[in-house]
């Protein structure tokens, strides 16, 4: 009772409006996600005619069945996990090492090097020169292209550098070197253990980018068994939408047209689940790491 009495009318009004706005914005963000979820288990005619609003209508799992039955999806999952793990490992290792080096004021040619890095953020050769480079490296058609191409981002290096510059004081290295610690030992035994939050954030950034990426795969891969999940899902989605009036079974065609919408939402769920599962694991580092990284310079 005391608590309530202490609040002025203004405070109470403020609280009500505040809560209302927060709940509203939560709903605005949450509803599309929720809609995808219920649409993916509803029957397609109800979706198209706008009947699916709050609850799934005519619940059916045919969309998921169609997606998960496809032989391609498991190789796609396997490839995507492989590409994501490999490319994230490469990306995080390179980024942390580069970011740390740039954070050290005693790095020779630091200014020049960092300008060169930043230059690549604004200017790139474009698709055809990149294609030619990949070709001359002999990587066309190889899964390594997908893993290596774009596995390190300069933007992330800058985030890492800011983190190291603000959280690893130079005095730490002076103290360690008095005890006889060299650069390598200092980096591995002191810097890396102190940087778990930025490593988690970088890993999430790289993993999400690689997981959602399909363009490199689209342009450089030559074999279906190398396709990552996103491309497989894309094929299933388009394959389920296209009308192939060239064959005898009309029922199957209609069936396919009908479930196309359900498949579309199912595909979104299937593609997002692994990343959604990863997020809670790194969430506690996320806020911290990003905030520190956001202080540039």
């Amino acid at each position: 009772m005391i608590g309530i009495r202490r609040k002025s009318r203004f405070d109470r009004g403020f609280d009500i409006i505040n809560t209302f706005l927060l709940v509203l914005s939560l709903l605005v963000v949450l509803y599309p996600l929720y809609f995808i979820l219920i649409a993916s288990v509803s029957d397609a005619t109800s979706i198209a005619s706008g009947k699916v609003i709050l609850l799934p209508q005519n619940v059916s799992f045919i969309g998921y069945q169609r997606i998960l039955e496809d032989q391609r999806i498991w190789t796609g999952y396997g490839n995507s996990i492989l590409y994501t793990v490999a490319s994230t490992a490469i990306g995080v290792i390179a980024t942390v090492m580069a970011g740390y080096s740039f954070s050290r004021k005693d790095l020779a040619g630091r200014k020049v090097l960092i300008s060169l890095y930043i230059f690549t953020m604004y200017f790139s050769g474009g698709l055809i020169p990149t294609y030619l480079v990949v070709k001359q490296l002999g990587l066309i058609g190889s899964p390594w292209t997908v893993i290596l191409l774009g596995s390190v981002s300069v933007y992330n290096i800058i985030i890492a550098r800011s983190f190291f510059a603000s959280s690893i004081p130079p005095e730490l290295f002076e103290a360690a070197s008095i005890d006889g610690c060299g650069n390598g030992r200092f980096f591995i035994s002191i810097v890396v253990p102190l940087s778990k939050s930025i490593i988690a954030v970088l890993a999430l950034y790289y993993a999400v980018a690689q997981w959602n990426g399909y363009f490199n795969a689209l342009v450089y891969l030559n074999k279906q068994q190398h396709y990552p999940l996103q491309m497989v899902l894309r094929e299933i989605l388009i394959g389920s939408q296209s009308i192939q009036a060239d064959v005898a079974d009309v029922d199957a065609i209609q069936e396919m047209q009908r479930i196309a919408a359900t498949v579309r939402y199912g595909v979104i769920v299937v593609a997002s689940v692994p990343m959604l599962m990863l997020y809670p694991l790194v969430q506690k580092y996320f806020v911290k790491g990003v905030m520190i990284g956001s202080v540039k310079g």
Partner: protein
Amino acid sequence: MKKAMTLVLALALSISLVLPALAADVELPITPEMETFTIMIDKEDMSQNGWSEKECVAFTEKQTNIHIEWIEVPHSGWKERVNLTFASGDLPDAIIGSGVDVVSNMDSLIALNEYVDRSAPNILQMFSDIPEMRGALTLSDGQFYSLPIGDADTKNEVNTEMWINQSWMDKLGLNMPTNIDEFHDILVAFRDQDPNGNGLKDEIPLLASASSGAANIDRLFGFFGTLDTDEHVRVENDQVIFTPAENTYFQALQWIHQLYSEGLINQEYFTEDYQQFLAKGNAETCIAGVALEWYIDNIILGSYVPDYTYMPLFDGPNGVTYWAREKMPQGTLNGFVITSACKNPEALVRWYDYINSDLDILNLWNYGPENLIWRYLDDGRWELFTDNVPEGSSSSQIRRTMGTGPRAPLYAYFRFRGPDVEKYADRITGKVEANQSYLKFAPAQAITSGFGLVDEEAERNMLLVDIDNYLTQFKANAIVNGITEEAWQKHIQTLSTLQIDEYTALWQSFYDAHK
């Protein structure tokens, strides 16, 4: 379905023991030693395996001694990849699939005349079966650089017909229309007299949608003796005419606006997407009186399909009705090209020739092994059938997994399919009859498919972009809001600023070159 697919595979394997007979007039193997070529293909989204796993590929390799390294490009990246290939000069030996700009990449391709004339009896037979084919393939230098691919089924010469609900007409005591006024009255009756008997005014007298090329109402312009095709031109007495400037086009617009404003045309015609359009046709209660589609079962729920029949065309108020047919010759003319990277083009030409040498091998590619989804009948014809299609799959998918589907080095024209050699499925007979009936209304002269001059094609396409942008807006506005005489005069002026005279002249020169 994994189990089902395994079943299909096992079935396919057992069937494959009965191998197709060899074509008589093809010398095999093509190369004495095994030779390897790389070929880039436009992979079908429905194909569940890679091309090297397909039986037709293995069989053909054994017969011809030609081994192919496939570059499988996903369909969504196809155009980009093809352009990249030519821009970077990183060329495979051959490219199969549509989208190769033969005219502007002529220098990177190999002219095929010599090889075809010397050692490709089946291609030569195709040229004599389809007399206009050779001319259509030939570029301005008198050589041809590509071979056609795809299904060229005669029943698809008219892509879209009008399908009318016969059982509604019987119920309301109506007869097939013989002029546009009767047609209008039928639509009104469909709108007002509740033919589906549910007490609601939910009928859509004319179901069409701008979201689908096949369901487009542009065809209705034909009742007034004009046409609105993708190119916006038609040909009469060897003269190319730009149709959106014709007075008959104005008449047609007014008529279509009348239908639209009276609620006779699907009121969401311009706004809905394809899924919403499908949902209308697939609704549990039948609501479509007349529908524009490739075939009625593409849009209407299966149980209502028998209610429909094609609506025979009739001459319009100007004494003539036109209904556009597909461009002839059918098929993807730039489908198969051999690039300058190829060391032995003759071998690849003969490889294509072999695949097109008889029905056994052609269908092994196009539909997979015999007796899986296609089989021979006792009378020597063949048919597609669905007995082996497992639950949850479709013939389309099996066709593209066990075979290649039509995006392959094959050209299935009337020698291999169509009424003379193929028994159509019962569901298709309606389409075949409709196609025959509508073909009579196709204009006698039309733009054919083929290749123009580099500069002319580029110029024409550039002009078309602006013309298209303007016309889409203009038409939608005229149909929804109506059009006055002044608005039409303004339209004519706008068209002249869009350089329609130049545009038409470019088509005229194309037409003259291919006549």
